[in-house]
Structure formats: structure tokens, C-alpha cells
């Protein structure tokens, strides 16, 4: 009995809402139908239970790396001249390494920079080894 009552109530509500809706032109009605078809056509997205972290590919820039090395060297009070030399050599080598790879992530670049810069300055290498590991 409740189901019948619900069904009739729903029909009445639909009828009222249809009356209350403003009348659409032909074009608007067709647009509405097309939208409704599109929504129906889209497959239902099933949310995965686990979220996978996708590593973000980074556009490598030699100039950006040079600036970064100079900035880190400034923190360690290394002279501009020396820092400039480190930046030039290391960024060149890292650029050569990156050119052999299709994609690289920022942590990959940091590890490679640390490896190259360790030959010249251990403190600077320490900074790159510990990026994102302070807290």
C-alpha cells in the first residue's frame, strides 16, 4: 500500500515539476536530449579501493639546475666564482645523463646531482641527498 502511495506521490511531483519548468525552444530541447544521451553513454567509473601515487615527470632545464646549485651554494657561503664552476660542470653532466632517459623524476635528478657534486663539495652533496628529508 505504501509503495502505491509512493508511486502516485512521485507521479504527482513529476507532473508538478514539469508544469513548473519553463517551456524550452526546439534547439534547447535537442541540446538537453543530447546531453542526457552523453551522460548515459559514459561508462560508470568504479572508484579503485587503493590510490596509486603516480610519479610526476619533470621538464629538465639545465639553466634551472644551475640556478638551484648557485642558490644552495649561497646557503653554504661558497663564493660565487667557485659555485659557478660547480654549477657549470655538474649541470652539464646531469644534462648528459638526463638526455639518455625518456622520463626522470625530481628525486632522480637530486640523486644524480648529489653524486656528481660530491666530487667537489661534500656539504653541497649532503643538501641534495637530504632534500625532503628534514622533517
Amino acid at each position, binding site marked *: 500500500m505504501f509503495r502505491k502511495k509512493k508511486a502516485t506521490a512521485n507521479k504527482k511531483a513529476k507532473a508538478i515539476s514539469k508544469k513548473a519548468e519553463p517551456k524550452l525552444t526546439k534547439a534547447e530541447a535537442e541540446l538537453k536530449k543530447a546531453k542526457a544521451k552523453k551522460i548515459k553513454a559514459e561508462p560508470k567509473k568504479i572508484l579503485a579501493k587503493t590510490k596509486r601515487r603516480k610519479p610526476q615527470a619533470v621538464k629538465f632545464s639545465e639553466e634551472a639546475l644551475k640556478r638551484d646549485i648557485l*642558490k*644552495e651554494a*649561497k*646557503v*653554504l*657561503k661558497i663564493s660565487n666564482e667557485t659555485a659557478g664552476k660547480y654549477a657549470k660542470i655538474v649541470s652539464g653532466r646531469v644534462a648528459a645523463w638526463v638526455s639518455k632517459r625518456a622520463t626522470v623524476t625530481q628525486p632522480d635528478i637530486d640523486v644524480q646531482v648529489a653524486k656528481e657534486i660530491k666530487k667537489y663539495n661534500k*656539504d653541497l652533496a*649532503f*643538501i641534495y641527498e*637530504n632534500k*625532503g*628529508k*628534514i*622533517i
Partner: protein
Amino acid sequence: MANSDLFIILLAGIIHATLQLGVGTLLLLYHASLGKHVRRKTRELVTNYILGNAFLTLVALPAVAFFIGVIFQGQMNAGMLTIAVGVLVALAISVWAFYYRFGKSTELWLPKSIAKFINSRAQITESKTEAFSLGMLACFAEAPFTFMLIIVSANSVVALPLELQILMIFVYVILSILPLLILRVAVRKGETVVDIQKWRLRNKKFLRIVSGIGFFILALFLLAFKVIGAI
């Protein structure tokens, strides 16, 4: 028992000082700022960071003391203090077990997203207001470990006369920001960010043990003087 209350506040302040999130975030701020700003600006940002950190503790402690005074009409009862003892022991075990992540770094228990957020905020801090709010953020993020210290200290503050209450609140705040002040003095004297981070890495185990033991001693003290002593 004024002496036991004073000791509880002092010990809680020292334990708060051994926690590392505030120090780590300040180090990040130094690292980001020294590379792009002049020294004077870095000093201003660091000062505001320390003030932000102190401000939140300075506001939280009297507020909690007020609520304890209103709810319990004085100090907390033995039942609540027993719960506090249990929580302190659990925090001691937590500090020993997972305060630091595994590996050769000073990465903390924080979820990676929060750590990255704090890191990114430290990188882009440009104004005094941002530095102040970063200090408050770091203090707030440490709340899972500091909330019980503040509750226990506030409970002791309630038992003290008014002049001592104000004094001990300030003593607690100063103790909690003491590592930040020491770090600031160290950098001013010429220590680099790398030297300080290496020091933190070398003494990671020691700091973890001291923190855990501190929580444990505080729990035992509360149990002996406030729970069993009150009975």
C-alpha cells in the same frame, strides 16, 4: 603540593623542547631564506617564526588551564589523571617506536602530504606574517605529542598562586622554544644548515631516547604524586 606542580611544568617544558618538528621546520625556513634573501630579512622571518611558535603555546596553556579550572573546579580528579598517565606512557612508547621514520634521515612520523605542505610553505615564506603562521603551523602539527604535556602542565598551573601561574606559563613557553633560540644563535655564530642537520642526524637516537624517557618519568611522577599521593 607546589613543588611537585613546579617540577611537572618544568619537566613537561623540557620534553616539549626535545620534540623536533619545530626545529626541523625552522631549519627548512633558514635553508630557503638564506638562499634568496639578505641576512636581515632572514633574521626577521626567523624571529617571527619563533614568535608564532611561542604564541600558540602561550595561548593554549592558559586556555586549557581555564577549562580545567571551570570543569573540575580546581585540579583534575584522580580518574582523569590516571588516564593522563596512560596516555603519557603510550606517547613514550610512540616516541621510541615511530617518532622518526626508518632510514638515515630525520624524517618524522608526519604523513608525507603534511610534511610536503610544511616544506612548501617554508620554501615560499616571504613575509613576516607568513613566517609567524608557519611557526604556529609547526607548533600545531606537533599537537598529537604536545597536547598531553599542555594538559598536564595546565593542571599543575591551576594549583599554583596567581603570580606563580603567570611565571610558570612563561617558563614553559620559553623552555618549549629554547631549541629554536639555540638554533638561531648557532646560525648567527656561523654554523651552516648542513652542520646543524648533521648534528641532528648524529644525535637522532639520543634525542628519541631522552624524549621517551621524559614522557615516562612524567607519567611516573604524576602517578606517584598526583594519583596515589592524592588517595
